[in-house]
């Protein structure tokens, strides 16, 4: 059976040769397959969302293994992943705050009229090509939901007022929507930050006023009102310095067009106890004249007017003021 023999020899030989070659090259070319890399890859969420700036988790893991990059830039993973990796490579994880994406524009279909009727492609980027969208406010969010499309965690949906609504539990702060939004109306702020400005319009005051009912027309009341001078006007918008701001909420309530967005579900209110010696310091401080009472008599708080900013609480020399309701500034939820 020469055919039988020949075919066995040739094919068997080929198989053997390839097997040996494979094994040999496998060892010679084997890159240092460090087990650490495997473990890091396992610790990463693996959704390849690109928030860490790399095309995939694997590439990010390789960079961590080569100690080229801080180990907490995996935003979706957040603290647990950072800790896990920290243990793996034995380096304390320098924690970057957990972040969350927020919409910095409140001009929906009701508040802000439309410049022209547009029935083109139903995607923000397409609408953006046509004079920046059909909203009369040039800077505002056109609301066609591109951010909802690209969010890898499905945290964004478009509300009936034609504006994106971000579900804070789902949102991991990966920042993809911020990058993808053509109008740059989404911003990443620390998850613990409650108050942020809800307007991005750099127009002059009067153009904003006749275009959007909730736009900031840079009256700068908030800047004067803020006890911690955390705000300063910059091209017609009050820029907030997060380190100074204590989320007291004064700017939110003092703003005539409530352009500020307050993420706190419930705010506390102040109560004055019997210790009050009627010195009146708190009355001077309270910007919402929510405190009434005559000198040297116990003062009283008008709960309806009190926004729970806590200024009286801080200023009261005899510590007579207590904050009640929403457990101080924490959110009720």
């Amino acid at each position, binding site marked *: 059976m020469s*055919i039988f023999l020949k075919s066995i020899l040739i094919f068997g030989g080929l198989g*053997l040769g390839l097997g040996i070659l494979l094994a040999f090259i496998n060892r010679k070319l084997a890159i240092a397959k460090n087990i650490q890399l495997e473990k890091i890859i396992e610790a990463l969420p693996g959704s390849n969302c690109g928030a860490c700036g790399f095309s995939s988790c694997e590439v990010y893991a390789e960079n961590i293994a080569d100690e080229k990059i801080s180990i907490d830039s995996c935003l979706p993973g957040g603290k647990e992943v950072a800790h896990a990796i920290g243990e793996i490579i034995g380096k304390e994880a320098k924690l970057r705050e957990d972040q969350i994406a927020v919409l910095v524009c409140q001009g929906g279909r009701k508040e802000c009229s439309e410049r022209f009727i547009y029935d083109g492609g139903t995607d923000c980027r397409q609408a953006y090509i046509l004079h920046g969208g059909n909203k009369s406010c040039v800077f505002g969010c056109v609301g066609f939901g591109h951010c909802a499309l690209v969010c890898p965690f499905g945290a964004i949906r478009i509300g009936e007022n034609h504006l994106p609504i971000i579900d804070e539990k789902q949102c991991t702060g990966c920042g993809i929507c911020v990058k993808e939004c053509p109008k740059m109306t989404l911003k990443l702020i620390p998850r613990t930050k409650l108050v942020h400005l809800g307007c991005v319009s750099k127009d002059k005051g009067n153009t904003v006023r006749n275009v959007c009912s909730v736009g900031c027309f840079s009256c700068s009341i908030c800047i004067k009102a803020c006890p911690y001078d955390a705000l300063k006007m910059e091209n017609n918008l009050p820029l907030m310095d997060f380190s100074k701001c204590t989320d007291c909420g004064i700017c939110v309530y003092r703003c005539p067009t409530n352009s500020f967005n307050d993420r706190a579900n419930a705010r506390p209110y102040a109560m004055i106890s019997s210790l009050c010696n009627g010195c009146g310091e708190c009355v001077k401080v309270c910007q919402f004249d929510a405190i009434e009472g005559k000198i040297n008599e116990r003062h009283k708080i008008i709960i309806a007017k009190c926004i729970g900013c806590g200024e009286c609480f801080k200023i009261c020399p005899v510590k007579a003021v207590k904050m009640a309701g929403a457990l101080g500034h924490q959110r009720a939820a």
Partner: protein
Amino acid sequence: MTKSTVWIVLSLFIICLISAGLLSKVYTLTRARIELIQNEKTQLNLAKVSDDTTSTQTGTVDTIMLSCLCRVLPTSKSYIEIIKDTLWIVNDERNQKIGIVFKIAPQGYGGPIPIWVGLGTDTIIQKIFIEADELKETPGLGTQVVESSFQEQFTKRAVNELKLSQDTKGIQAITGATISSRAVVNGIRDNIKRYKKYLISDTLPKAP
């Protein structure tokens, strides 16, 4: 070599051995039948190109059913294979040489075009036959070269008339397939020159 790599190489080797053995068994089993069919087709093609009506005896080629495998040979002819699968000498029943048949495969652009050419002793082409189904083409799409009208032009043509031209003197190329028709014409002409010497010598020449 750790134990696992030995096992990797070994398992690959064993699988190759088994499959090679199996394949050779299958091949030897089916080879007989394939050759049978192959011969059957060559006989059919030989008959197609060498029905030399001008030859003395009157035997005409009767139809040969490919499907039924009984070999109904043309009544009078016998074919002696000179070069395996490329050249045959055609003799009538009194073993007189009446022509040769050769198979060529000039290079078209859809792949090689297999052509059978029957040549009478007077170097006049009796007939040519292009095997349509041999062409390696996407199933279901024929190519124009195969049309019988193109093949008919070659019947009863002398060697010097074999050139592409517009008038009826030469061969009209098929529209849209100029490259392939030129390949066919040149292929036939060059090979006639090569095999001409087998026509003249009466004795059986040694294979070149």
